[in-house]
């Protein structure tokens, strides 16, 4: 970032067409991309199991169909026992998304309850709940999840959901507690308290509506955590291995040596699905972040004036001649060099004014 920035005299470069401001149009591009990508997977999860070409568990006895690569009949190939990978994938997307959504809802509800309760009860209960959420944040989740799931008598969707929700709330609780504490001291809360509103009503109708974006971001984060953790747990074998989720698909691919047999079509689709769902959620979350903090936005929010980029937070540019153009890498290297500063000094129109300014620091 240089101290002065050139402005071109060309008015066309300055004119930034006003953005459309609808709910969709106002979203940052990252949030849009995330929504679309996630939508594709949600659709696949809803429609997929209805249109699966085969029963995902059906083992085709024909030896020709064991570990068969992608073909017209089996678009994503078959497993070692002749099961159709595409059918498993569609079923798996549904099961994984279902689990993640339920965990997201339950754990987010828990974090709202704990966070708001800590902020409102104050004193000892606040200390206790905050300590508890900090402790569970610092403990590594996966070994604890493994221990809990290992001891549970049966394995499957419900126990996994219970355990993941039980350990998924601390981060959200911490964030929501902090936000509730600041909202609690605002005037409109004091006003509704003066009018005799009950505490639960203040919480439900004044506090929570003001935290919707925070809760939404927290939900997205929790879903991301649930997908990652459930897939990892299933990959270790801590899941109902007769059902098809993305994690159990990877478990079977790994335990039946798909990699060593060269059957990339067996482990790549479920893994890619996990990665892409995860990417869509990260994009969505970054988008929500950028909505709240315009500084974080990428090049799209940066006005390009006279070939130089201007951030919303930059000082107002000063008009003078544009510097010689540089390549990207050269420009990057140059911006760290001392010469970049000397050049700017040489270009300045009023050297007398600069001499007046004190210049401490390691200047030659």
């Amino acid at each position, binding site marked *: 970032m240089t101290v002065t920035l050139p402005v071109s005299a060309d008015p066309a470069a300055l004119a930034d067409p006003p953005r459309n401001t609808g709910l969709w149009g106002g979203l940052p591009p990252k949030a849009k991309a995330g929504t679309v990508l996630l939508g594709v997977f949600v659709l696949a999860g809803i429609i997929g199991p209805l249109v699966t070409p085969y029963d995902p568990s059906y083992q085709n006895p024909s030896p020709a169909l064991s570990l068969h690569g992608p073909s017209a009949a089996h678009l994503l190939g078959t497993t070692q026992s002749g099961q159709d990978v595409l059918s498993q994938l569609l079923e798996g997307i549904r099961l994984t998304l279902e689990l993640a959504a339920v965990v997201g809802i339950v754990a987010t509800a828990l974090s709202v309850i704990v966070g708001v309760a800590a902020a409102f009860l104050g004193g000892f209960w606040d200390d206790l709940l905050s300590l508890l959420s900090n402790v569970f*944040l610092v403990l590594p989740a996966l070994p604890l999840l493994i221990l809990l799931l290992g001891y549970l008598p049966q394995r499957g969707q419900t126990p996994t959901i219970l355990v993941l929700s039980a350990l998924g709330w601390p981060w959200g609780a911490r964030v929501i507690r902090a936000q509730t504490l600041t909202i609690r001291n605002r005037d409109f809360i004091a006003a509704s308290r003066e009018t005799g509103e009950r505490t639960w009503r203040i919480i439900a109708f004044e506090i929570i509506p003001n935290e919707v974006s925070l809760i939404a971001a927290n939900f997205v984060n929790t879903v991301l955590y649930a997908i990652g953790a459930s897939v990892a747990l299933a990959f270790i074998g801590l899941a109902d291995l007769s059902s098809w989720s993305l994690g159990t698909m990877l478990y079977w691919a*790994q335990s039946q040596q798909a990699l060593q047999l060269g059957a990339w079509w067996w482990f790549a689709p479920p893994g890619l699905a996990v990665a892409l769902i995860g990417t869509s959620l990260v994009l969505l979350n970054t988008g929500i972040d950028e909505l709240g903090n315009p500084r974080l936005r990428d090049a799209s929010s940066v006005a390009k004036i006279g070939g130089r980029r201007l951030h919303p937070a930059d000082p107002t540019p000063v008009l003078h001649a544009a510097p010689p153009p540089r390549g990207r890498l050269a420009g990057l290297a140059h911006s760290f060099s001392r010469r970049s500063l000397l050049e700017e000094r040489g270009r300045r129109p009023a050297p007398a004014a600069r001499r007046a300014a004190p210049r401490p620091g390691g200047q030659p």
Partner: protein
Amino acid sequence: MPFLLRRLVFYLVAAWVALTANFFIPRAMGGSAILDILSKFPNLQPSAYKALEAMLGVGHPGSIWHQYMSYLDDVFHFNFGTDVTEYPAKVSTLLVQTIPWTLTLVGSATIIAFVLGTLLGILAGWRHGGWFDRVLPGLMFFQAVPYFFLALILLEVFAISVHVFPLGQGYAGGLIPGWHWSFIGSAIYHSLLPAFTIVITSVAGWMLQMRNVMITTIGEDYVLAGQAKGLPNHRVVFTYAARNALLPQLQGFGLALGFVVSGAIVMEIVFSYPGIGLLLLNAVTSNDFPLMQAIFLVITFTVLLANLIVDLIIVFVDPRARAQEAAR
């Protein structure tokens, strides 16, 4: 209370919570579940069976307080009982064999990823709006990829399609572990791909976080003041902006460590790396509960210790925390 003492108390509480959870989880499962577990080991040696019973809280264990005390005593003496599947191996012996592998691999790869990610994040935050922001979605992909899936892909590419790296294991077969060059070289060669996996998947997270903090820090007045004084850019970037942006980054490092370690442990399974992850997989597949519990404790304590070290670094970097220390 000074910063470090407060943190120390907090970690002690966290350690106590982990210890207590570890003690009560098997006891909370109910009698039928416990009998179910015991029935999975019909031909266990009597002494191992007794140890398992004691761990699960059945048989004639005495009062719950007495059990708890003797459990704490065992843990403090690094005595995690006898392994039920690899009888008569002690759980602690198995742990001692595997911990150095994981600690070296995950520890060094995480530190490399953190340093690299932070440096790239400084660059990206400073050159905000440049080329970096265009590759951002790609980085988010790497952030969302499960560690073990990337491990599978890397193995497919570098060990099966192109035979550049070995297909897993910690060292070449036939070598005897010891402090000689052929073994150390082989171990380093075998750890390159796993380490690379950890670096690729976790570097994006550190980078994005540092970028975001940098962007916020650059907007601060003291950075503008540094620029207005005419300081060279590198000085403004590193000693004005980055040094202040580093504090939230370090605090985030402590919290994210648990996730990184968890991911790395699952990744070890793909590489058949002789670390704690593979041990954990074996424990899960063979219902080896003493081993599972010991691994949980060891991983937890290691993460807590690493957090404490991060706090020490924070005190070193942050003058405010140091002033708090000195005020005592």
